[in-house]
């Protein structure tokens, strides 16, 4: 008996996962150079610990957290720091980065000792290790994991949810990870549960990955971990929707999961936690899906941070024909980019290429008030009405109509028959409202 849990709204785009869901994870060969961005997470920029011409080892910490909400960065291989400069980022702007030229030996740094007795280790030490390994949310937001594990007093956490939903179409990295390293995920879940001091652990997986559900259910049969099969509906993997589907708790508008006693971590993050604690391996590589109809051989690769997009595409055999879009992340929330020298980061779950035929040409018509966006919106706001307000620059009105609750999941733009750029409108409104709030706070 499958259990299907529901949330309001959502859409069901063509999932496109068949291109890469059967491709086993392959290791990428060592590169000559890695261009490693320093800001791979949400929060304060980290402090650089090395300078030009320094020698580094694989896994050596080269930048330490620059604040509470920040994360450390580790070298992807051994070699020499050959440049302290900038690299292009996914959002189009450049960001600080260092270039590491490999010495070909790939010597590992030993400063993080394996904690084989983690089951008896003090939870504080486990947290410290997770922070030292530079682990951030690998599902997309790149929020430092340590912060999620350190709720302020008065916010008791009793439920840990591992997000194995992977509701973004086309991406298969988490699916493959659940098939190939289920032990790591389960160990990671137990470590996270221990560090949070809680018993209830769920792993939420969409029903379109029956093999992963079966395997994880078998392996967690006699544990406190419960594998939950979820309805195939985008955005099932959005934090608030996932919490609601599994626990029936509603995260308050403008609130955080900890307000309802939950912590949500991606399965890839859990695996990274297990590696950091059990093997003493910091986060310097991740699994990324390279896919799309123009790609010669789509698949899933274990890539080190700082690998340029061009290299990832070369691993996938390049392209048959010129794509019209290059997207970092999935098709619903990913960022379209236009450079091949952008490096892979801790939150790059996929690289998606779209052919010219697959690209939707922007043709915004007037809103015909069909209400499909209202039906599809998982946050139950009214994107259509908001977009008209925003077109008229009525940002105060948009704030009253709860523009700030938008999670930019893209359901409204996806479904809109008039092709209106609803998400882009809402992004603009959120930026304007935030700017206004900041200005008001400064006064």
């Amino acid at each position, binding site marked *: 008996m499958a259990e299907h849990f529901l949330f309001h709204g959502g859409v069901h785009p063509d999932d496109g996962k068949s291109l890469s869901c059967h491709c086993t994870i392959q290791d990428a060969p060592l590169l000559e150079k890695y261009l490693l961005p320093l800001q791979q997470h949400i929060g304060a920029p980290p402090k650089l610990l090395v300078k030009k011409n320094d020698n580094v080892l694989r896994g050596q910490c080269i930048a330490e957290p620059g604040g509470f909400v920040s994360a450390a960065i580790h070298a992807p291989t051994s070699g020499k720091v050959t440049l302290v400069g900038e690299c292009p980022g996914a*959002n*189009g*702007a*450049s960001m600080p980065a260092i270039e590491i030229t490999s010495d070909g030996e790939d010597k590992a740094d030993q400063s993080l000792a394996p904690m084989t007795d983690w089951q008896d280790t003090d939870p504080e030490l486990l947290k410290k290790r997770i922070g030292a390994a530079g682990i951030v949310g690998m599902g997309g937001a790149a929020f430092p994991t340590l912060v999620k594990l350190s709720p302020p007093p008065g916010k008791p956490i009793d439920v840990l949810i591992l997000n194995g939903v992977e509701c973004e179409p086309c991406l298969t990295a988490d699916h493959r990870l659940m098939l190939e390293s289920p032990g790591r995920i389960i160990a990671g879940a137990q470590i996270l549960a221990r560090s949070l001091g809680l018993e209830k652990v769920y792993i939420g997986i969409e029903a379109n990955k029956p093999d992963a559900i079966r395997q994880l259910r078998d392996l967690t049969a006699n544990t406190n971990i419960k594998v939950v099969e979820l309805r195939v509906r985008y955005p099932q993997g959005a934090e608030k929707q996932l919490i609601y589907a599994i626990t029936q708790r509603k995260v308050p508008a403008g609130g955080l999961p900890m307000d309802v006693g939950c912590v949500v971590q991606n399965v890839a993050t859990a695996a990274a936690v297990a590696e950091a604690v059990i093997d003493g391996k910091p986060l310097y590589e991740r699994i990324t899906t390279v896919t799309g109809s123009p790609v010669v051989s789509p698949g899933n690769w274990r890539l080190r941070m700082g690998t340029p997009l061009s290299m990832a595409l070369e691993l996938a055999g390049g392209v048959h024909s010129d794509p019209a879009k290059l997207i970092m992340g999935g098709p619903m929330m990913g*960022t*379209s*980019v*236009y*450079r091949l020298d952008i490096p892979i980061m801790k939150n790059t779950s996929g690289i998606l290429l779209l052919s010219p035929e697959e*690209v939707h*040409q*922007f043709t*915004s018509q007037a809103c015909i008030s069909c209400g499909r966006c209202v039906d599809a919106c998982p946050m139950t706001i009214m994107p259509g009405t908001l977009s008209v307000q925003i077109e008229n620059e009525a940002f105060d009105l948009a704030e009253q109509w709860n523009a700030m609750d938008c999670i930019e999941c893209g359901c409204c733009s996806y479904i809109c028959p008039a092709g209106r*750029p609803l998400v*882009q*409108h809402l*992004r*603009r409104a959120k*930026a304007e409202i935030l700017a206004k709030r900041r200005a008001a706070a400064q006064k």
Partner: protein
Amino acid sequence: MSAIMVLVLVGLGLGLLIGIAVKLFAVETDPRIEQVEELLPNANCGACGFAGCADFARAMVGQTASAGQCPSTSDDAVKQICALLGTEASQRTAMVAVVKCGGNAAVAQAAAHYNGISDCRSASLVASGAKNCLHGCLGLGTCARACPFGAIEVIAGLAVVHPELCTGCAKCVATCPRNLIEVAPASTPVHILCNSPEKGAAKMKVCKAACIGCRKCLNAGDEGQIQMAGFLAKINYDNPPTAGIAASCPTKCLQPVAAAARSAQTTLEPCEVTNG
């Protein structure tokens, strides 16, 4: 017949009532307010700090504002207003807006085809605007739409101010997501059409009309006329150089005022501007 009579009588009666009410409840207004308002541009741009031209006129008549506060009124009209109100005409400097970018589609290529809302502020949220130069004009005309005087035109993917139409009201300044618009004294003979703080070499890669920080204009002009701010030359508006200095600029980033708009129109083939 009686229906017509009744209607006529009702009409007359109501008309009379309105006439009496008008006299009875008349509000005393200073006739000068209307006269002053007529002399104002009535574009309601808000540059004076009041809610609109009518509000400003009321303030002037009430002696809480002076005509010089309106950047858009001609000197002649200011004199007339001052004569009307019996105040002293203050000395004003005519101002004009400058878009500090010369990177039109021919000299500064777009990095990718932007496909979305035709608004610079919305576009800057997508891949930072998809222009190779991260500081240049996006050319989607948000400033042009904000201008109450129609003084900004997007030519070949670059917003260009027509100085003869611009009144210096500064309404466009806040609309530019790249903060490219500056209001400068209209008497300044030349402007530096670049606002990128990047190094010269980096700028040259993305734009043929960038200020590359070569300092040639510094040497061509007198001491203090042009100052360097990092890798960017800036005109000292208190002591501006002469138009002749433009010849010293190797990238033609330093442009005489009148020529800026004209050269954009004549020397450039109209380029295919990315669909927005």
